[in-house]
């Protein structure tokens, strides 16, 4: 079975890369660079979930910032108001985001294309507006200040370097789970639902259940990422969760390569790095950023991972995602 072999090879290469990445703090001593890597790591978690949702089941979401926000606020409020430890708060935030994912998944059963996009946009905006206006709980526009730092086995995570390892560990788990989902019966069924709902249904797939479950999974990824994000930033406010943020997540997923877990990682790191690198240009920075988006989707229709696959030709990177 050739595919299994090349898949193993691809996975091994990818894991080797991650292990290499593990040593990053030894040579990236610039805290700013480390900070950006950490941020990219958190974004990657969101994009992993989104990739499963929009890449595998074809349900495009432009409201992912809403789930991200729910994760951030729920875990932050639990830690601040009830002194719940980080990991429990994070777990509850993840579950809460998942619940909202289920709620949004219900209309998604009936909707597709632009209608679903708009429903998710609406969801993201509703979340942001509620955070902004529900002042007694969310502190409104001022946001939450002094979100506690996470504790891992009694060790308080404080510096960028500490966060680097916490985020890296989360990322490894996240990538592993995403790969497992993508590479299992669930991922296969998602792709089938995306390719042909009718045929999938005729083969006994309960498409509604699968569509909702994809929303739940993506929401949980975003929710967990949100809980990390809150503690990482120390403060949070509705300004973090605008429509533009959701658009950014979607761009990462598509630019990296929709329907590819490795692509999600590449997209999140790549786009975060590009948008920081463009700081060199002061004036028309975002004009160039927009142009990059346009050119990529025209000339790399399958994202960066598609380009890799094309270059690698026979070496089937496709198999590892």
């Amino acid at each position, binding site marked *: 079975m050739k595919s299994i072999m090349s898949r193993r090879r691809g996975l091994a290469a990818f894991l080797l890369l991650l292990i290499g990445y593990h040593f990053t703090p030894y040579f990236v001593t610039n805290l700013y660079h480390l900070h950006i890597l950490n941020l990219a790591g958190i974004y990657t978690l969101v994009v992993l979930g989104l990739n499963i949702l929009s890449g595998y089941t074809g349900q495009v979401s432009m409201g992912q910032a809403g789930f991200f926000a729910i994760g951030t606020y729920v875990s932050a409020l639990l830690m601040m108001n009830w002194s719940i430890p980080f990991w429990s708060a994070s777990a509850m935030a993840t579950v809460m985001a998942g619940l909202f994912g289920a709620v949004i998944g219900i209309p998604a059963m009936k909707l597709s294309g632009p209608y679903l996009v708009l429903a998710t946009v609406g969801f993201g905006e509703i979340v942001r507006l509620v955070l902004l206006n529900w002042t007694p709980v969310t502190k409104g526009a001022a946001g939450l200040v002094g979100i506690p730092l996470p504790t891992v086995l009694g060790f308080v995570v404080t510096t960028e370097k500490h966060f680097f390892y916490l985020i890296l560990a989360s990322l490894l788990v996240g990538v592993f789970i995403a790969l497992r989902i993508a590479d299992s*019966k669930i991922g296969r069924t998602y*792709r089938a639902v995306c*390719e042909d709902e009718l045929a999938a249904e005729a*083969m006994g797939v309960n498409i509604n259940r699968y569509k909702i479950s994809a929303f739940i999974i993506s929401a949980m990824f975003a929710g967990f990422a949100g809980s990390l994000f809150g503690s990482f930033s120390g403060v949070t406010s509705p300004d973090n969760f605008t429509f533009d943020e959701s658009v950014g997540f979607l761009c990462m997923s598509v630019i990296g390569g929709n329907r590819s877990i490795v692509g999600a990682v590449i997209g999140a790191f790549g786009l975060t790095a590009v948008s920081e690198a463009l700081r060199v240009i002061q004036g028309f920075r975002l004009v160039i950023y927009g142009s990059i988006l346009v050119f990529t989707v025209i000339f790399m229709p399958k994202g960066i991972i598609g380009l890799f696959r094309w270059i690698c030709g026979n070496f089937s990177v496709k198999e590892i995602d």
Partner: protein
Amino acid sequence: MDDRNVILEVRDISKRFGGLRALDTVSVAIRRNSVHGIIGPNGAGKTTLFNLITGMLLPDSGQFEIEGKPIKKVRPHQLVSIGVSRTFQNIRLFKGMSVLENVMIGQHVHTPTAVFSIMINGRKSRSAENAAREEALAALGFVGMARNVDQNVDSLSYGNQRLVEFARALAAKPRILLLDEPAAGMNPTEKQHLLRLINSLQQKDYTVVLIEHDMKVVMNVCSTVSVLDHGKKLAEGRPEDIRRHPEVIRAYLGKSDRGHA
């Protein structure tokens, strides 16, 4: 007809699309272990009948029974558990997926979805996955596509795509298999192969319902043939009777002179 021998009964089914009466009080009884052909000119309502049986359309009136049990408001995906699976007239494979993956989807209801086990790559999920793969490979082996498992379905010829779809429907382990023009796009060799497959299915305790244009196929494998025309059942009987049925000939040839053979 012996009732115990009827596995699928269609009773007085009607369906309209706008002004068009696609099916008009059609009744068909399918006997266990038979190969039942449904023929008729284009637009006669054959595919509509399949779509109604599989729950993809809801009938305006009438009902279905499988093994004497009425099936009402059953969602399409639940039909597989009841024991019905189908192929499509315009091949509906999952593009961008491999042959094996396509057929493994057919196994969907027969393997557990062990969510937790999947996430940790546990033994339960691995054994389920292996079982699904074995079943899918067996189905592919049966239709003679075992060599192409890793190929993308896009790259197959029409005939082979039909075979993959056939294997996918078989992998769902149905009691009743609905085949919508399985021979369309097949060359004579492939058709022969298909005929053998359908015949051997009959011996394996399957019931096959078959929509087909190719009379050679129909005449060779079907034990009973129902003829639809403009939403109505025109005739039903053994193939050799049907081909001489004057109504059927008229339906197929219109009022034009057929010429002489």
